[in-house]
Each structure stands twice: as structure tokens, then as C-alpha cells.
């Protein structure tokens, strides 16, 4: 209850009481007005029905699906096998296996990504200085065999070996 | 048919009341009490006193039992490990015999001298309707208006007393919990 400095008389009390009641009631009707408008517009539903809308489904831009190494039209990726992503991963999901090319420079051999351990945190993507990896949009990742959860993300340029 | 129904209901009342006072678990006893209130209401309906039956349900089941239940639930360790008090069997049987004898003597006395009973049962011809009860309760002539007003004052005093009793000691907060 309010602690008023001056004692209000009965008339003020009654008018304040009535005013509070009526204005409170009006705010209730304002809230009810909003929800009834939602009710009579089922088209304005903001949820989507998932398996039925698979064809038209587009995840939003910042969605964090599985890790993905984009290759350009010549099949080249931007990874230099620096290993920063491997060090930044909190639970060792990534293994960067480097090899030496003909000139003796360190290049990427195999980029191993264990989906079973990935937490989709995105620290590897933030850490990569070359923008070689991103988190893609696919989320339907369930498989029946645990061995299928270890992926090699880079595609060799000439041959088409390796699982992805 | 009526007799049979009466015996069934009366034995239900007796049994449930007995359970209400002898069950070791207090809550089970309270539930038996609820059952006995309902059975009593059934007897009132058999006696064509409909208003009394409805009032019995409304006041006893709806009011008093809820009240008792709240008291039982608010008190710690009540009704958890209750066992009957250790009175010897002989004393209990003796008490039962004395009370049964007294009631039997009373019944015998009144059935042999029926003129000593109050005359209230003679004038009741038709079942009393709720309208008549209302009119009789509030009419100023031949009515019960004075006890009605006195009872309302009593209730007011009880309500105010409950509010005053449940106030906090220091008047920093005023919470009214009747």
C-alpha cells in the first residue's frame, strides 16, 4: 500500500480507487484485443510445419549446421593447414593432417572432422584466418552407423576420392 | 424399500462416524467424517427436509471439513504416527455398557410416555420449502429475525477477531489473513 505524506480524505480515496480499477480494466481489454487479433489471423502464425515444408525450407543466415569447407569451381579450397582451428576447438573435433607437396611446402592432406564430437560452437570458424571453413545450413545429420560420423572435409583437386 | 434404505444409510452413518474417531491416521478419519456428513444429508433427504440436507452439505462438507483439513495440514506431525491411547479393554467395555444402558433407558422412558416429547412433530404437514424457511427466518412477527441479526453480529465479531489475532506483532506490515 502507498505511504502518503498527507492523509487523503474519503472522496480522494474513493476516486483514486475507482480510477485505478477502471484504468486497470481498460489495460486488460487492450491485452485481450491483441490476442484476439492473433486468433482471427491464422495466416500470421510464425511457426512452420517442419517435415511438410522441406522443399521450401530455408534456414536463416546465422544458422549453425555442420562444418563445411567451401571449394571454388576449380576444386580449390582456402585451407593452408595452419592448424589454428584444431587448436581452438574445445573438444578436439578437428584433425588437420598436413602433407608436403612437391615443392616441400606444407599443404593440407586430410581435414578430418568428427561430427559426433562437434558442439557447433563456431570457434573454429572464428579462428580461421583465411575463411576456409564455415558452418553450413544442413541439420538433418542423423545416421545409423557411428563410423559415418567422421568426415573428411577437403576434396582433392584432381581425383575424386574421399568421403564427405 | 424405505426401511431397507434407512437401515443401510443409518448403518453407514454409524460406521463412518465410528471410523472417524477410531482410525489412527487423522486424515483417514477426516475422510470418514466427510462420508458420514454425506450419509447424514441422505437421511435428511429421506425425511423430506431438502433444505437441511443441502445446508448440511454446503456447510459441513464445504466449510467445516475444509477448515479441519487446513488445520491438520498446517500443524506439524499431526496424524502421522498416531496410535490409539492405551486404555485397557475392560474400561472401554465398561464405558460402552454404561452409555448403551443410559440411551436404552432414555428410549424406553420416552416410548412409554410419548406425551412428554416436544410437540414439534405433530404440526408438520407438508415438506417445508426453501421460500417458507426464508420468510420465517426474516419475518418480524413470528419469525427469527432477532436471532438472525444476533448471529450476524457474532460472525462479524469472529471475523474481526480472526483478523486481529493474525496480525503481525510489529505494525510494519499490515497483512490481512483471515
Amino acid at each position, binding site marked *: 500500500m502507498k505511504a502518503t505524506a498527507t492523509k487523503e480524505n474519503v472522496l480522494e480515496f474513493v476516486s483514486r480507487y475507482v480510477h485505478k480499477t477502471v484504468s486497470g480494466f481498460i489495460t486488460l481489454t487492450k491485452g485481450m484485443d491483441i490476442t484476439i487479433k492473433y486468433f482471427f489471423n491464422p495466416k500470421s*502464425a510464425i511457426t512452420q510445419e517442419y517435415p511438410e515444408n522441406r522443399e521450401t525450407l530455408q534456414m536463416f543466415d546465422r544458422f549453425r549446421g555442420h562444418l563445411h569447407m567451401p571449394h571454388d569451381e576449380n576444386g580449390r579450397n582456402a585451407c593452408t593447414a595452419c592448424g589454428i582451428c584444431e587448436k581452438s576447438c574445445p573438444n578436439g573435433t578437428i584433425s588437420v593432417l598436413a602433407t608436403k607437396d612437391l615443392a616441400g611446402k606444407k599443404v593440407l592432406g586430410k581435414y578430418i572432422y568428427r561430427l559426433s564430437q562437434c558442439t557447433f560452437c563456431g570457434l573454429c570458424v572464428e579462428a580461421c584466418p583465411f575463411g576456409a571453413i564455415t558452418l553450413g545450413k544442413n541439420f538433418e545429420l542423423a545416421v545409423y552407423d557411428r563410423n559415418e560420423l567422421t568426415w573428411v572435409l577437403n576434396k582433392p583437386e584432381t581425383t575424386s576420392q574421399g568421403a564427405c | 424399500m*424405505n426401511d431397507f434404505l434407512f437401515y443401510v444409510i443409518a448403518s453407514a452413518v454409524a460406521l463412518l462416524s465410528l471410523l472417524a474417531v477410531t482410525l489412527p491416521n487423522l486424515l483417514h478419519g477426516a475422510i470418514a467424517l466427510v462420508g458420514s456428513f454425506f450419509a447424514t444429508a441422505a437421511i435428511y433427504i429421506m425425511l423430506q427436509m431438502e433444505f437441511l440436507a443441502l445446508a448440511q452439505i454446503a456447510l459441513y*462438507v464445504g466449510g467445516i471439513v475444509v477448515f479441519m483439513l487446513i488445520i491438520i495440514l498446517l500443524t506439524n506431525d499431526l496424524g502421522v504416527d498416531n496410535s490409539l491411547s492405551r486404555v485397557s479393554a475392560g474400561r472401554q467395555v465398561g464405558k460402552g455398557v454404561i452409555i448403551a444402558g443410559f440411551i436404552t433407558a432414555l428410549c424406553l422412558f420416552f416410548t412409554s410416555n410419548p406425551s412428554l416429547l416436544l410437540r414439534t412433530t405433530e404440526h408438520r404437514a407438508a415438506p417445508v420449502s426453501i421460500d417458507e424457511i426464508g420468510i420465517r427466518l426474516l419475518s418480524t412477527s413470528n419469525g427469527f429475525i432477532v436471532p438472525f441479526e444476533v448471529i450476524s453480529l457474532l460472525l462479524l465479531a469472529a471475523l474481526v477477531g480472526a483478523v486481529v489475532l493474525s496480525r503481525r506483532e510489529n505494525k510494519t506490515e499490515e497483512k490481512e*489473513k483471515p
Partner: protein
Amino acid sequence: MMPSSAELYPVNNFIGDLVRSIFQQPAAAVINGLLALLSLMALVGSLGAVLIFLERKVSAHFQLRFGPMRVGPHGLLQPLADGIKSIFKEIIKPAGADTFIFFLAPLLPVSAAFLVLAVIPFDHHLQVADPAGGVLYVLGISGLSILGILLAGWASNNKYSLLGAMRSGAQMVSFEISIALLMLLIVMLSGTASLRGIVLAQEGTIFDWWIFKLPFLGIVAFIMYLVASTAELNRTPFDIAEAESELTGGFATEYSGISFAMFFLGEFVNMFVAACLVTTFFLGGFHAPLFGLPVIDPLLNLIPGFLWFFAKAFLIVFLYMWFRWTFPRVRVDQLMYLEWKIMLPASLILLMLSGLFVAQGWVG
């Protein structure tokens, strides 16, 4: 000497007459009674399913989503799936819980709903019983619901359940006072306490319904009755007892499977019963909303009374759901403040004013 129930509450609709023409008298009365009870059970069973489905769909549409859409077209078979799941779920009784009371408690709110449904006039001759003090009966039976909730809270052997049950019990007992005073107001206006008499007192056009007949009091009394009965039903904004996010289910925390389904069903059927009572007291029961116009009135009267009754009752149910999914929850002390400091004085003032109206002969 004592009138049998067949004479006190004869079933006068065409089914009752049919039975009486086929069978002899004592058997006919028994069969009529059994049929009435069976129809009540059928009503409660189908209502439970319909209302639960309706609640989920209506709440979804209020919240800009769809609700159940998968089981059957637009989720129509969802209550069936829920019922089958509840029946097959294991009933877990917590250790230390009082078995008898634990399994008795869910039955009480459902029984109370049945008992009140028996006196509600669905149509001119579709009422199981019409006691002269029907309003008093309804008040008494709502005490039974309170009993069920208190016992459920205690028997769960769980401090949070007990806390939820005590809060709920206190809330229901408090708001019963306002409900009783508002019912008394209607009884005073109608001149009779039997529910059928109250409905018949509203005969005529739509402006003879008690919500409209009193110039200002009717609507205020209607709104107050809606608020009080929402609190009596433990629905949001007054569902502090079963506050889903705060007390993890309140008094029904420890209940699973069919016991929990009983509580749930009891709550929904009680909601329908409260809506029926609102319809009976304020909205003219089974009377059609006539306007006094010559052409439309006979058409409106063609629709049977119980359809009008159910339409009005479902409108009130929709109103309850609208309240639930619009308003936030009030705190328990705000709830008690509402009852004891706002609604009780207001009900008393309304009662006095309507007494004045009746005494002056303006109404009734």
C-alpha cells in the same frame, strides 16, 4: 408418504415418455434415472476430449502457432492419442505417500463436476434433477473440489505439493465467498434458488437476461463472476497453485498416468461446469437470443434450447481460454488482496444495490 424421485424429478422429455410407455412404473423410473446418468457420463467423456483439444488449438492460435496438426486432420485425433498414452503410462506412487488418500484425491474434483452437472438445465426438460435449493447445492459441491486438492497436496509426501495445495485451497475458499454473494444476487433477482427457475425468470428477449436487464449492475456482476470463477478453477491469471514454471505442477506434481489425467480432466470439466453456471445465471440458459423482431424470432426459436445453451457455454469457455493466454499470473498476495479488499466489498455493494432494486420493484 415420501414422494419418489420419479415424482420429484420426472424426466419429461420424449425419451422419458418413451421409457414410461414401454415399462411399468418402478422400472421406468429406474431406467430413466440410469439413462440420465449415462448421458451425463457420455457428456463428461466427450467434453473432456473436446475441451482438451480445443484448449490446445485455441491456445496455439492465440500464440501465433498452429497447435497439434499431425494426428488426424488438423490434429483432431490428438485427444485420443493423449488418452491412450495416459492409460498406458505407469502410475507411480511416491514412497511414503498415503495410498488411500493418494488415489482418492483425483476422484473428488471429477465427482464434484459430475454432481454439479446433474442440476444444470440444458433445456426445458433436459435436467437430471432440479432441487429447490439448487444454488445452495452448487456451493456445497464446490467444497468437494477444494477437499480433493488439499488431500492431493498432502498425500503426495512432497513439500512443494503441499505448498501448492495450501495456496490453492486458500484461494478457492476465498473466491467462493464472492461467488456465493453473486449467486445470491441472482437468486434475489430471480426470486427462486432452483436453477431452472432462474433460467425461466430470464424468459423473453435478449434484454431479459440478467446480464442486460439490470442497467449497469448486470455487466459488472457478470465480469466479477467471471473473475471469481476463474480463480475458483485455478486458471491463469490465478493459477499460482499449479504454476507450471514455479511450483512444477503444484499439487499434482507427483501424479502420473491416469491419475494426472483425472486431475486434468477434472479441471477442464469444472471449467465447462463453471461456464454452464455463468450461462444459467447471466446469459439466459437455454433461451434463444430473441430481439422482439417478427421475422427472425421464430427462426431463432426453431433451434433447440440445448444448442443455444452449448453455444453460450462454449463462448464462455472461449472467454476463459482467452483470459488464460493473455494475462500474466498474479502473485498469491495480490490474489488475496483482490478478493478480500476489492471483490468482497464490491460484491456486498452490488448485493445491496440489487436488493434496493428489487425492493423498489424496478426489477424482478
